[in-house]
């Protein structure tokens, strides 16, 4: 079994080996296919597997924390919380049905975003009028989760105005709020909100085609 070899290798490694940046096996030997296996073991409270999982994915998850929270200390606090959550939630990961890496990234993003948003205590007194958007309403049949839509989102992003695609990307990748996006693109807050909401509807419509 691969995992046994992995564990042996881990035991032979010192902490400094493990923490070295760019240790090649981290990426090459720990492919996506092995993460569900590790998660399954973590769900059974296997601490060796938990360490192997940490070694395999902490750089990526820390990259997310750092990009969203900007401050290194905050990002490390977040990473700690994220791995505590992973330990407790590993049993909710259903292997084979969800990809492991996006699942882990979502935990990291959600936690970092919660921290980011509560840090700023923004007062977005936007009134929730979305009536103007309803024209673009969705196909009611398009409700089921279609797996393997994967990269179609990239094509759909290209169908958006470049500005708006960039705003969607900045919101997702940098965790920018409506207010920050409005300032960056120099448009009123409500305009930015309409941009993003319309973009989301267009993306959904494109994905459903």
């Amino acid at each position, binding site marked *: 079994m691969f995992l046994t070899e992995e564990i042996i290798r881990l035991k032979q490694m010192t902490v400094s080996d493990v923490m070295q*940046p760019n240790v090649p096996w981290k990426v090459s030997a720990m492919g996506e296919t092995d993460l569900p296996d590790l998660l399954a073991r973590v*769900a*059974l*409270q296997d601490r060796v597997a938990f*360490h192997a999982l*940490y070694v395999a994915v*902490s*750089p*990526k998850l*820390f*990259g*997310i924390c750092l*990009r969203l929270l900007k401050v290194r200390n905050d*990002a*490390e606090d977040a*990473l*700690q919380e994220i791995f*505590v959550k992973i*330990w407790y939630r590993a049993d909710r990961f*259903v292997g084979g*049905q969800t*990809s492991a*890496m*996006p699942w882990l*990234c*979502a935990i990291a*993003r959600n936690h970092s*975003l919660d921290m*980011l*948003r509560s840090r*700023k*205590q*923004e*007062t*977005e007194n936007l009134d929730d009028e979305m*009536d103007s*958007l*309803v024209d*673009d*309403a*969705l196909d*009611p049949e398009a*409700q*089921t*989760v*279609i*797996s393997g839509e*994967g*990269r179609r*989102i990239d094509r759909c992003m290209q169908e958006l105005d470049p500005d708006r695609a960039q705003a969607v*990307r900045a*919101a*997702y*990748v940098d*965790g920018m709020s*409506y207010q920050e996006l409005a300032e960056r693109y120099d448009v009123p807050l409500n305009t930015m909100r309409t941009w*993003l*909401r319309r973009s*989301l*509807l267009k993306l959904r419509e494109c994905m459903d085609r």
Partner: protein
Amino acid sequence: MTKPDQSEGDRARDEVLAGEYVLGVLPAEKRQQVEQRIRCDRAFAAMVARWQENLSSMDDEYVPQVPSEAVFPQVQQRLFSRGSQQAQHSGFGRRLWSSAPVWRTLALTSFLMLIGVAIFGLQPPSSLKTGGQMQAQLKGQDGTNISLLANYEPRSGRLTMMPVANPQSEPKSLELWMIDGNAPPVSLGVIPDTANGDVIVPDTMRRRIANGVTLAVSLEPKGGSPSLGPTGPVLLSGQMLAR
């Protein structure tokens, strides 16, 4: 939950809200409201899951960074130090559940039990000649949450084995769930602790039990989960495969 009369406008609104949540643009309070809704509204949770999957290709933009060496020891400290007995306790329980020796012991016990029944069946003791039903609860080692209730009907020779929750500080039930992909678990019903353990799947769910879905059994308060999803630990799970 999707109501039959839900308008397209509502659905579009929900799609946008789910997308905004995954993008991350919502303020803190709104995020919490959405998270609350994800927990109790399956249709909405599915929308969020789909956005999550769709937008996850942008995760590629996050460049891996190496955290300080102090982080992992801190995580370990939080999870495994003496202060966190709870984690260790539940860990023990779960390890027990995944432990082959426990299951082998249980299997052997039931096998011996069957042999015993077979022998008694051939030469029934006087108590059985009356045709009275008999029952045994087959338990694993201490700390397990589930046992098998063996009901023996001497006349027909039928021995039914039924999973039941072990009585704990308060009565518990076992609840059966179906998990389809990213969607939240859907209850198929509580496993009855009378009768023969049959769970009759509701009409609306029958077509949804398809090849590849996961069935899981969780430990719940007596009568089943008080909320829409499981609230207790998942004791057993497995994938449904066509035979």
